[in-house]
């Protein structure tokens, strides 16, 4: 028995011995309890509740967090290899390119009211299109790269933040997707957080999960996009309904239909941490790297977890 539990040793013994009194409860009591419980807190709503924020606020917070990280980096840190053929400075250059693409996409959507469906196909390659900006950082002072990124990120916030123009419902084409601006901002927040953790890993700094309000937006969107991720890996043919339970602050509970046309009882339940799940969606961990409790159809669970990885941009 560990010291932690030793304090409660007598209570535990008492609890175990109380089993002697166990009696079968009357029929219907369980159902009455469930009904009464759901009146107190609807299903799917986490406890304790997490304050809701807008996608604009989430993006703003993540920009601030990323900015603080960059401000803390020394010269050696900026040279560390992070991703693909990029060091930290190159990765920040990539993000400067992403901001420019994002601003252009928002401008185009503003002009026509909403991006035409064809714009999603024409949006180009997320990595290839930003590579010239990433490469252009080589030899520049790191502080200039940082200042350029900060300036362009603030410009993005000004473009979307003042009076919420355009509307968060406006469809924007970016990275081969065509999504409402609100969803796109959550994806942008996701992207910045994933790259913040990339830099933290590369520079041997502790990882930093998003705050619970931001994480809630991320888990909600990621679970909503899960069917698309599973389709992307060709795993939706033999579909079914799954219950996704993401634990910890920023988590929740969702029923997700994978290729299933009709509602049906869930074939599998996946329980895992909200932050782990988001790292999975960012393709920074693999399904077997995370602690997940799976009950039911293991095959479907495997396709869902691999489909989550397929949602990653880079």
């Amino acid at each position, binding site marked *: 028995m560990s010291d932690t539990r030793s304090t409660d040793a007598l209570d535990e013994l*008492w609890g175990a*011995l109380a089993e002697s*009194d166990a009696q079968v409860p009357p029929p219907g009591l369980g159902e009455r309890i469930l009904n009464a*419980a759901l009146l107190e*807190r609807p299903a799917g709503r*986490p406890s304790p509740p997490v304050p809701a924020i807008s996608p604009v606020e989430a993006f703003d917070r993540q920009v601030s967090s990323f900015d603080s990280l960059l401000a803390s980096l020394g010269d050696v840190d900026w040279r560390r290899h992070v991703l693909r053929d990029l060091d930290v400075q190159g990765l920040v250059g990539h993000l400067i390119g992403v901001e420019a693409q994002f601003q252009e996409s928002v401008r185009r959507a503003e002009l026509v009211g909403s991006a035409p469906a064809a714009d999603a196909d024409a949006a180009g390659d997320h990595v290839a299109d930003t590579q010239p900006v990433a490469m252009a950082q080589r030899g520049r002072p790191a502080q200039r790269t940082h200042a350029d990124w900060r300036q362009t990120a603030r410009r993005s916030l000004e473009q979307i933040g003042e009076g919420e123009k355009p509307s968060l419902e406006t469809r924007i084409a970016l990275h081969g997707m065509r999504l409402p601006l609100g969803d796109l901002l959550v994806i942008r927040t996701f992207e910045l957080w994933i790259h913040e953790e990339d830099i933290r890993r590369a520079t041997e700094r502790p990882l930093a999960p998003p705050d619970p309000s931001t994480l809630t937006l991320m888990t909600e969107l990621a679970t909503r996009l899960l069917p698309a991720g599973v389709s992307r890996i060709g795993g939706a043919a033999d579909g079914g309904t799954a219950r996704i339970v993401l634990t*910890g602050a920023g988590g929740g*509970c969702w029923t997700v239909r994978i290729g299933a046309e009709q509602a049906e009882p869930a074939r599998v339940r996946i329980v895992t941490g909200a932050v782990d799940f988001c790292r999975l969606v960012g393709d920074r961990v693999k399904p077997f790297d995370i602690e997940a409790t799976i009950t039911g159809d293991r095959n479907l669970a495997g396709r869902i977890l691999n489909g989550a990885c397929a949602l990653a941009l880079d």
Partner: protein
Amino acid sequence: MAGPRRPLRRPEETVRSRREGATLRPVVEWDGVLCARLAAGDEEAIAEAFERYGSLVYGLARRVTGSLTAAEDVVQEVFVALWRSPERVDPTRGSLRTFLCMQAECRAVDLMRRDACRSAREHRQGRLESWARPSANDAEGAAQAAMTARVVQEAIRQLPPEQREVVELAYFGGRSHSEVAAALGISVGTAKGRLRLAYSKLRRLLAPEMAEMA
């Protein structure tokens, strides 16, 4: 512990992926996962909690209140409160079973005496021979708690093997009587009988030490 151990499994088996594992493998779903699911808003978790612990809480409430109706009210209050604020349970500090039992006894006594938790604690401690219970809020309290735990462990070691086995499964393993019976291949009645004998012997064994500690 005497004799070969049988593999222990709870009624519901689940599968967990692990960092070190190349394949999915079955493991037990512990209280911690159940509490995390409750906090996430998984309503199936409250149904499972009732399925697992409902008879325990109901039986305890009936014994304290002596009333079928009052016992039902207590059970409903306990499980609705668990769903309302699952974060009140800290699985690292103790089992969900004990938490629910304490809640049930508090509420049952409250119904009967309107003197809530204080009376409940007195009642519980009375059942445990009025042992002095240390506080963990300071170093002295923690040391005393550790000593209490050692005394309890030593007493359990002195039990006959078949009684020690059921106590260890029920106490350290957190298993219900039916789970203990299934794990050992004995009837539920036999498991209960051994636990009663063990409890009686523990009271005798622990009485002098607890009097000294007090």
